[in-house]
């Protein structure tokens, strides 16, 4: 009897998975592919940076030009990320919580910077703010500099990281629906109270991931910033541009040392992202396991209709 049962189970399993050798072969190919394309490049950054020892590594990072590049990158990021954070929340609130005409078109426009080449993005700002651009003469008359200066770098950074937070939040907020917010409003909460106490706790992990990804992309942007920066050493060089200059000057160890800072940033970003995802999953599972009689405003309408 028990033999028959295991045979049935085995046949049912065979229907939804492959033979063991196929499984191991596919896992093996995947791991080799990812090792070649992801692990090796990451490892190469650190080994190249430490090729001449720890001393040379830190010597390269102590250089004043490297410091000013770090400072400029931090400034540009510190302006670009909050700007896109506010925009991302506004856009997600308008698009996910309301129905209006042209919504699909607006969503497409929000995605637009994602598909524009960074070089083209930089060129756009040169044509608007550059010496012979739209506002060029006016800016020159008022002794303001945008292109080949910090404001241009900030603008280019804002453009390339424009959609990330909105893209992360829109599907999340759409999936959560409006029921909880509507209940809060009906019970007398103001719009701000509803946002801070109802919406924000629901989206916090998605928001964190959006911010951290925006941050990584802002610090690492190369193409767009390279067009508007003018590569003035010690003044308008961001970290990735500094990497390029050092590399082209055959200062390989210094180039990879600066690059390793950005690689560490990428690894930290991935770790925070994974932790945020696991926490979000755990919270969702915990919420799903709550007893149905718990008197939350959601369970009245949404869970009843979902079942």
């Amino acid at each position, binding site marked *: 009897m028990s033999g028959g049962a295991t045979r049935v189970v085995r046949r049912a399993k065979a229907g939804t998975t492959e033979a063991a050798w196929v499984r191991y072969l596919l896992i093996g190919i995947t791991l080799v592919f990812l090792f070649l394309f992801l692990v090796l490049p990451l490892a190469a950054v650190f080994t190249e940076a430490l090729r001449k020892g720890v001393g040379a590594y830190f010597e390269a990072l102590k250089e004043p030009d490297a410091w000013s590049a770090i400072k400029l990158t931090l400034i540009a990021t510190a302006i670009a990320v909050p700007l896109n954070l506010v*925009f991302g929340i506004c856009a997600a609130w308008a698009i996910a919580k309301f129905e*209006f005409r042209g919504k699909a078109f607006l969503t497409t426009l929000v995605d637009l910077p994602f598909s524009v080449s960074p*070089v083209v993005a930089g060129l756009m700002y040169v044509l*608007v703010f550059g010496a012979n651009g739209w506002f060029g003469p006016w800016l020159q008359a008022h002794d303001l500099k945008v292109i080949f200066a910090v404001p241009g770098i900030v603008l280019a950074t804002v453009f390339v990281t424009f959609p990330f937070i909105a893209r992360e939040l829109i599907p999340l907020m759409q999936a959560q629906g409006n029921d909880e917010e509507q209940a809060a409003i009906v019970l007398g909460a103001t719009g701000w109270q509803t946002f801070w106490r109802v919406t924000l706790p629901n989206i916090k992990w998605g928001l964190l991931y959006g911010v951290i990804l925006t941050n990584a992309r802002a610090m690492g942007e190369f193409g767009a910033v390279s067009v508007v920066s003018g590569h003035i050493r010690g003044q308008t060089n961001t970290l990735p541009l500094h990497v390029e200059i050092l590399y082209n000057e055959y200062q390989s160890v210094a180039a990879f040392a600066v690059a390793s800072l950005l690689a560490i940033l990428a690894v930290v970003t991935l770790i925070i992202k994974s932790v945020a995802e696991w926490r979000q999953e755990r919270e969702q599972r915990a919420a799903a396991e709550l007893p149905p009689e718990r008197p939350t405003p959601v369970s009245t309408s949404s869970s009843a209709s979902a079942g």
Partner: protein
Amino acid sequence: MTAAQVAVAPEATARRSPRRVLPGFGLTLGYTLFYLSVIVLIPLSALFLRTFSLTLEQFWVAVTSPRVMASYRLTFGASLFAAVVNLVFGLLVAWVLVRYKFPGKKIVDALVDLPFALPTAVAGISLTALLAGNGWLGQYLEPMGIKLAFTPAGVVIALIFIGLPFVVRTVQPVLEDAEKELEEAATSLGATRLQIFTKVILPHILPALMTGFAMAFARAIGEYGSVIFIAGNMPMVSEITPLIIIGKLEQYDYAGATAVAVVMLVISFVLLLVINALQAWQRRRTGSVS
């Protein structure tokens, strides 16, 4: 602080839809449109308007000169090649991550996003260091006559790296939601595992697969940072289109740079529309299945 919100929202609510309970529609949509215009739409229109400083003939000459044509061939050819590789391996990675258990799976899953997080310039110099004649991989490949760094093949390698997460991340959730009951039903009706894959699973994930492919392709066409280090940048051979734009800018040929940029922009718009259509298809498909 809520004054603006209160002033705008009820009016908009009353006019457009009586069922709108939540506040903040006017404020958030207004700010979204304002920010979108300042950062994206006005600079974009500057680019298009600038091309009117050229006559049609000048424009045509600028975007079809032999060196530019060679760069289109390289950019589109390498991007297509890389996107196809990503299609195949992206599906494989997504499949293995969703269906199989193995040690270190969570780390592998997290690592897939590395190309999103690693700055392109870092990826570029690192891949170059690996594949150059004295690099970890190059030292074995070059004696065999395989030269990857500073050739068009190097461009493809960099673009595979850049586009790797797209197919994985679009296919993975769809594969997770796929109903195993369908596969069980197919098995009990006598289908082989391969038949089930091609006739049950593949149609279900096809829209997501194509979306990921189109995204990887779109990203590859515009890519600059990772490619220029490994490409060698020889005119007519390994010079990508974004580099043509930079070259023209450095010679103060703003009109020429703009003309080529407009060609690239139009192509990215078309790709964006294709991606949107694919995503709508996917929503219909998954909506009808479940």
